[in-house]
């Protein structure tokens, strides 16, 4: 792919992201009068600004972070089925967040409890999955079979932990846990959005800055070292940045799967496998996909809403099966 074409794809993806940011808040079960919004008249103004804009922005930022994390783990593990969901990292972050909800820890060290819990959970699972690879640097690749089985085991253990905690949490907290676990993109405060925006921007910036390193690492460690990469340092920083992205997104949205699988896979096969193109495109298009799923969930059975996580799972589950079948066919 020529440089001009690569640049064009990145700009197109960014353009799609911007269009989604502007257009999707207007999508919903009830129409919104632009005139009323401009005059700041209720309820249209409040519905748009307080509800739809914030949830669209949350979907865009969280989806972008999760999609980029998927592309990152796929490069680190040389496995296109690796994503926060299949690796069990989402489940670990969920368990961590649920622990803080069940314990009534609204804040930990001045930070929202679910953020801290999700971060600790994500780190713990990633250390479990990637730890042996980081320590024994000669065997970096996990087979798809090992990875999926590890993910299933981690998901099962975390699900069991969440069930046990829900049983002992009492009615009010148990309801909070159930609501959080649905994996939806609800309206959130602009302060939380701001924090998530900073976390995702910094994490994404760091990951994108190393894009050439991820390309080299995807070929092999000897290859990467001989082309100027300090593999141990790069893997370690990828581990931290990926965990922070996943934990930050999941703390606000609940467990949302598949965005980190579908988008990087499509970009890799349809646009470019080069991380300098793949990663920014996956970032922008991942955010767009989650925001579109959220918008679909708002309009498909009005006035009820289907959580974005459920819409994405309905697309992502069959897509994962299709990807596995395609690989078998090859």
């Amino acid at each position, binding site marked *: *792919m020529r*440089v001009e074409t*690569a*640049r064009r794809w990145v700009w197109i993806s960014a353009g799609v992201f911007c269009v989604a940011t502007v257009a999707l808040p207007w999508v919903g079960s009830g129409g919104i009068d632009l005139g009323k919004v401009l005059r700041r008249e209720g309820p249209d103004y409040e519905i748009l600004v307080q509800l739809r804009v914030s949830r669209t922005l949350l979907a865009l930022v969280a989806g972008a972070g999760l999609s980029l994390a998927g592309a990152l783990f796929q490069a680190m593990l*040389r496995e*296109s089925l690796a994503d926060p969901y299949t690796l069990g990292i989402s489940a670990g972050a969920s368990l961590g967040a649920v622990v803080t909800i069940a314990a009534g820890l609204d804040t930990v060290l001045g930070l929202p409890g679910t953020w801290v819990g999700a971060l600790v959970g994500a780190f713990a699972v990633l250390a479990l999955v990637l730890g042996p690879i980081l320590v024994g640097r000669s065997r970096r*690749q996990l087979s798809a079979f090992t990875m999926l089985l590890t993910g299933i085991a981690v998901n099962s253990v975390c699900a069991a932990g969440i069930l046990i905690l829900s049983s002992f949490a009492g009615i009010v907290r148990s309801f909070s846990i159930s609501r959080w676990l649905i994996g939806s993109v609800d309206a959130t405060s602009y302060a939380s959005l701001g924090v998530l925006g900073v976390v995702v921007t910094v994490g994404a910036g760091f990951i994108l800055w190393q*894009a*050439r390193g991820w*390309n*080299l690492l*995807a*070929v*092999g*460690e*000897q*290859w990467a*070292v*001989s*082309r*100027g*990469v*300090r593999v141990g340092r790069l893997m370690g920083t990828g581990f931290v940045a990926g965990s922070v992205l996943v934990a930050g997104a999941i703390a606000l949205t609940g467990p949302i799967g598949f965005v980190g699988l579908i988008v990087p896979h499509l970009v*890799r*096969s349809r646009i470019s*496998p*080069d991380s*300098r193109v793949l990663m920014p495109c996956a970032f922008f298009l991942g955010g767009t996909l989650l925001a579109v799923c959220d918008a679909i969930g708002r309009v498909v059975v009005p006035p009820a809403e289907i959580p974005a996580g459920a819409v994405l799972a309905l697309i992502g589950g069959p897509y994962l099966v299709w990807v596995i079948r395609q690989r078998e066919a090859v």
Partner: protein
Amino acid sequence: MMKILLTLEGAEFGFGAREVLRSVSFEAGAGEFLAIVGANGAGKSTLLDLISGFRRPSGGSVIVDGRRVEEYGARELSKRVSHLPQAVHADLPFTAEQLVAMGRYPHTDKWFESEEDHRLVRAAMERTQCWEWRERRFGTLSGGERQRVLLAACMAQQAEVLLLDEPSNFLDIDQQLQCFSMLRQEAERGKLCVAVTHDLNLAMRFCTRMVVLADGVVARDMSVAEAARGGEWLELFSGRLRMEAAGDGTAWVSYR
């Protein structure tokens, strides 16, 4: 006088309790084409890993262009040493051209390669006769085609020390000859080429020097002319090998 580019002084390395290299020492300079030969498990690939900085010696030192390898920054070293590993995963999603362009990464801070980088990539791919597959995905190439692409990536890196682990793997006979001939030309242009190989005849025909590893040490370090004069060193490989002279007088390793 030959510029010394590589010095090993008592280099040692082991995997846990298993010693692979025990006090390996030799020097090599610009214009030389070294064949590293030895039986399986002799430590040939590990030796290249020490020189490329992928592994650190547990004892002794590896010096590239006057400085110990660990004193270099990773990128600084990669401008001096290029390494073609023995095995690269075949299922890579990159195109041939994207893979070769990775050889230019150490030379630029720009997000994408410059026009000059593209020119060097094309020159390297034309040299190894793989430019026509530039748009093809690496995973769709045959073993020999992949090897030519990887060789081009090493060429595009423009390092003064080329480390090649079995560079003629998967190549047909004509391509093996072209590969070693090209490496010899690189040496004659002032580079140091170090190739691990099991093909003693290719080594004797194209290399300038042979370093035989056995039991973790340098068992023999000789010019190809010396190697051709006496065949006793062949006992280090197999009792069935012997040195013969071809019709034109060229030394030839045959087996019975």
